[in-house]
């Protein structure tokens, strides 16, 4: 059987295997058995799409042309990987916390979710990637052709165009099948990643196998290989320093900025910890991939006939030696490299194109209403599928038009310079809060323009797009505008020249634009989020919405995410908020979460626009800006909240302590009173018993003695009755059963009566009164009121320890209220007692003689019944009580 047919069979079988692996991985993930899919090894292997067919075939060609210089393409990514602590760690964290779907999404999201910026990045990415896809198609067709040439049985050479078309169609089909199973681009494409990991193994094994074969099969071991290197035309290390350094930096930049690298590194990242393995395993992978490149190139240059394409040495060396099996393995390696690159690049670009170009246009033309009535989900999926087909077709078209003539490596470098234009905006966005949208837009467009003019357009050759006169004399005859000698920088390598000028202009315009412009609030908010991603990964709320919008939001989300997922999301949010049903409050937190989930499907800018159409604009509140303004402001805000809280706590604690103290005192007083009352009741009882026993048992008592003892018994009985009366009185007052006897009388008469009844006359206490102010007529229960006055005056008589004791009674009238102050010149009542003197059974000092401590309690109850109050007046020289009551007691008060 002819080798070409075998090759086609192997190819078809390999593609079937790819489909099976992808399908199996998707199934395993769907059934939850896919924990092995998320291993750091798979992540590392998926990064290997950096090594495309350009590496597989082109590295040897590169080495055959310029020696060791090829290695710079792999040194750049190596340095970026081992420098993960600077950038990759941050990039992956931002990508995960913001649910970034592509590099365009990241840049647009950082600069205030600007769709203009996203479109610019998308266009540049498409321009930079299309030739690259063409390159992969070309490599597959070239390798096919290489086999066909050796196949003597084949009568006709296969048509290169049709091979490329078949490959392109197969790849588009695979990508659409496994790359758009889910709308949420932020979800992992397990099938695709697994297939790519497998392809990574295949291409590494293939290249190593060819290397081993070349070194030990063709060149007699290591010594023989070294001899051949010495003898070859690449024996001397003649690398231009500018290219060595420039290409290393360029490849490092491209490694971060290539849309497909961003896809596998950030978007498909399952776990940040996988990075830790990848940072050493991926450089090791790159090292192994480049290990045999120089030997293969040297041996190929030695053994292959003059004029053989060095890009195909990997394939033609085994073929020449008749090792068909190895040649087929090598072909599969190249095929793997090409297909995996096209698949991932198509997914990455289709996400960008559909999210940032197609969807916004569709939403614009279908109007805001479509969001709640149209079927966004299907439109978005269709857009993505069409974009995949479109991207692959563009690559094919480029391949057809360019004729597949250019050397492989050259076009790879041109694409690198193109995507490297994202670097200033990307790094500035991650590390510099001052970076603004204006700066990013200007830098990106000028850098891209320089790249197009100095490298991309001239790469088509003179007279095709740029006329020869432009190369010789510059644009419009301005010599300083020659594409290969911009600003008079003559004699430089075109790639280094383009890298230098484009990056220089891009970066300086970006920085200057950022310094001179002022960012919008959303930009500042996002800037703080990105730069301080390790300090606070949460987003401060930016949305404010009303309840009525929840339903609209649910309807819109159902259209995008699918009914079940959207309802689950809403129900979960409602449950978290403690709301029953499916409609949570559109709180800022919820809207933020919803936006992030939606952005996984349609990109940050579109999701933001959709929600703002329903909710009516993001409100970036002053608090948000405060929080963004400075970390210190945040800390201050936080600590002031804490302070307020702790003050409130302290207040509550103080109130609790006071209440507790009062309760304890009351309890102590109650105990004290019980013992007091039993004592008060016992004392008269004891004397009554004693004297009645004397009267009964002693026969010869004189009449005088008899009457003396009888009167003692009587007095004690009266005292007992008075005590019981007091208790009864208080009980009646407290239960509200008292009947008031309203009379009208004069205050001075009332006070005279009270003074007399309190037994002041003839005592030590002098009462100072203001007769003029007492000329007041009042209507109240005068007997009860007199009882209060008597109590207060009697208290002063009993307790005032002034020398000589003086009680001042001062009445004032305000707003129909009579206010009477009874203040004496004694030592007053201690502060800690003031709170309890009006409680029942309260007595000041254990030793002072007096009543049972019911007097003031009765006064308080009486005043309450009379619609007034009695209170202790602190801050006077001695003890002072204030009695206030209405001049005309309303009957209703009863």
């Amino acid at each position, binding site marked *: 059987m002819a080798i070409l047919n075998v090759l086609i069979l192997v190819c078809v079988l390999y593609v079937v295997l790819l489909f099976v692996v992808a399908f199996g991985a998707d199934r395993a993930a769907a059934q939850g058995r896919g924990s092995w899919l998320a291993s750091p090894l798979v992540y590392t292997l998926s990064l290997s799409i950096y090594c495309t067919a350009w590496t597989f075939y082109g590295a040897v060609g590169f080495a055959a042309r310029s*020696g*060791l210089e090829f*290695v710079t393409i792999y*040194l750049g990514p*190596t*340095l*970026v*990987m*081992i*420098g*993960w*602590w*600077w950038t990759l*760690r941050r990039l*992956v*964290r931002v990508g995960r916390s913001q649910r970034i779907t592509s590099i365009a999404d990241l840049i647009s999201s950082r600069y205030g979710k600007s769709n203009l910026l996203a479109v610019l990045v998308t266009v540049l990415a498409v321009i930079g990637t299309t030739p690259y896809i063409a390159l992969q198609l070309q490599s597959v067709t070239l390798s096919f052709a290489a086999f066909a040439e050796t196949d003597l049985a084949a009568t006709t050479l296969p048509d290169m165009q049709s091979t490329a078309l078949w490959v392109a169609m197969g790849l588009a089909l695979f990508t659409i099948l496994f790359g758009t199973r889910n709308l949420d681009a932020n979800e992992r494409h397990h099938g695709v990643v697994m297939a790519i990991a497998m392809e990574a193994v295949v291409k590494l094994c293939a290249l190593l196998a060819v290397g081993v074969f070349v070194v030990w099969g063709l060149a007699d071991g290591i010594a023989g290989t*070294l001899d051949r*290197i*010495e003898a070859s035309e*690449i*024996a*001397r*290390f*003649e*690398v231009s*320093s500018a290219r*060595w*350094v420039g290409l*290393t930096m360029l490849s490092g930049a491209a490694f971060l900025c290539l849309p497909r690298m961003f896809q596998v590194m950030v978007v498909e990242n399952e776990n*940040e*910890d996988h*990075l*830790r*393995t990848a*940072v*050493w395993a991926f*450089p*090791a992978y790159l*090292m192994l991939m*480049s*290990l045999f490149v*120089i030997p293969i190139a040297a041996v190929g240059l030695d053994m292959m006939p003059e004029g053989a394409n060095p890009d195909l040495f990997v394939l033609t060396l085994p073929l020449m030696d008749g090792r068909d099996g190895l040649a087929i393995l090598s072909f599969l390696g190249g095929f793997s490299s090409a297909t995996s690159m096209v698949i991932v690049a198509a997914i990455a670009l289709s996400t960008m194109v559909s999210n940032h170009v197609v969807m916004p246009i569709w939403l614009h033309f279908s109007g805001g209403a479509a969001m709640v009535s149209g079927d966004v989900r299907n439109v978005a999926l269709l857009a993505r599928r069409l974009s995949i087909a479109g991207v692959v077709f563009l690559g094919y078209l480029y391949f057809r038009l360019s004729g597949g003539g250019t050397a492989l490596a050259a076009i790879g470098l041109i694409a690198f310079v193109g995507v490297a234009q994202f670097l200033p905006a990307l790094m500035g966005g991650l590390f510099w809060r001052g970076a603004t949208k204006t700066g990013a837009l200007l830098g990106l467009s000028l850098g891209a323009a320089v790249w197009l003019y100095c490298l991309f357009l001239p790469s088509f050759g003179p007279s095709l797009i740029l006329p020869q006169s432009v190369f010789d004399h510059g644009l419009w005859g301005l010599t300083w505008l020659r594409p290969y000698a911009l600003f008079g920088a003559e004699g430089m390598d075109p790639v280094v020249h383009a890298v230098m000028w484009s990056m220089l202009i891009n970066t300086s315009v970006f920085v200057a634009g950022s310094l001179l412009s002022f960012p919008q609030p959303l930009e500042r908010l996002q800037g703080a989020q990105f730069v*301080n991603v*390790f*300090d606070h990964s949460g987003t401060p709320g930016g949305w404010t919405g009303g309840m009525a919008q929840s339903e609209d939001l649910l309807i819109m989300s159902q259209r995008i995410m699918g009914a079940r997922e959207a309802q689950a999301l809403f129900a979960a949010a409602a449950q978290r908020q403690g709301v029953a049903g499916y409609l949570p409050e559109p709180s800022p937190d919820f809207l933020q979460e919803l936006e992030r989930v939606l952005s996984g499907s349609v990109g940050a800018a579109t999701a933001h626009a959709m929600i703002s159409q329903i909710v009516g604009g993001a409100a970036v509140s002053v608090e948000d800006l405060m929080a963004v303004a400075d*970390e*210190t402001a945040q*800390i201050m805000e936080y600590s002031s909240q804490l302070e307020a809280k702790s003050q409130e706590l302290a207040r509550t604690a103080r109130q609790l302590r006071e209440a507790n103290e009062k309760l304890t005192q009351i309890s102590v007083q109650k105990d004290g009173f019980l013992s007091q009352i039993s004592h008060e009741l016992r004392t008269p009882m004891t004397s009554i018993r004693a004297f009645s026993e004397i009267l009964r048992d002693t026969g010869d008592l004189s009449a005088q003695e008899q009457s003396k003892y009888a009167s003692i018994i009587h007095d004690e009985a009266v005292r007992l009755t008075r005590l019981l009366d007091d208790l009864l009185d208080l009980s009646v007052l407290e239960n509200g059963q008292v009947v008031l006897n309203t009379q009208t009388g004069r205050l001075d008469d009332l006070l005279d009566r009270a003074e007399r009844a309190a037994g002041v006359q003839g005592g030590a206490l002098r009462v100072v009164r203001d007769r003029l102010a007492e000329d007041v007529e009042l209507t109240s229960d005068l007997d009860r009121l007199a009882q209060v006055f008597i109590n207060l005056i009697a208290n002063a008589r009993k307790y005032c320890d002034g020398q000589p004791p003086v009680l001042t009674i001062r009445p004032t009238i305000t707003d129909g209220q009579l206010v009477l102050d009874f203040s004496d010149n004694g030592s007053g009542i201690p502060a800690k007692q003031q709170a309890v003197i009006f409680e029942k059974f309260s007595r000041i000092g254990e030793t002072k003689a007096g009543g049972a401590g019911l007097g003031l309690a009765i006064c308080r109850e009486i005043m309450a019944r009379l619609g007034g109050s009695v209170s202790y007046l602190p801050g006077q020289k001695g003890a002072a009580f204030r009695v206030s009551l209405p001049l005309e007691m309303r009957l209703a008060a009863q």
Partner: protein
Amino acid sequence: MNPERGPVFLARRTYRRRRLADGARLLPVLGGVLFCVPLLWKGGARALGTAEAMFYVFGLWAVLVAISGVISRHLRASDIEEDLTDGEEG
């Protein structure tokens, strides 16, 4: 950035981890410089062979991979959250 820089002296483990992070930051700089060393040899009297440069570059590559492996094994990406006082570039 933070006005409060945290404690001046750290526990031994935290200290080690910070120095590891420093190492992780410096490794690419060191690698970048060392990868450029062959450029200096070009000017020497004896022309440099591709084979020699190849041995140097690949040897250095392997050493960098090994060092990076050792550092990343002991340095978790989430470590920074554990000692927030470090600040970001601290």
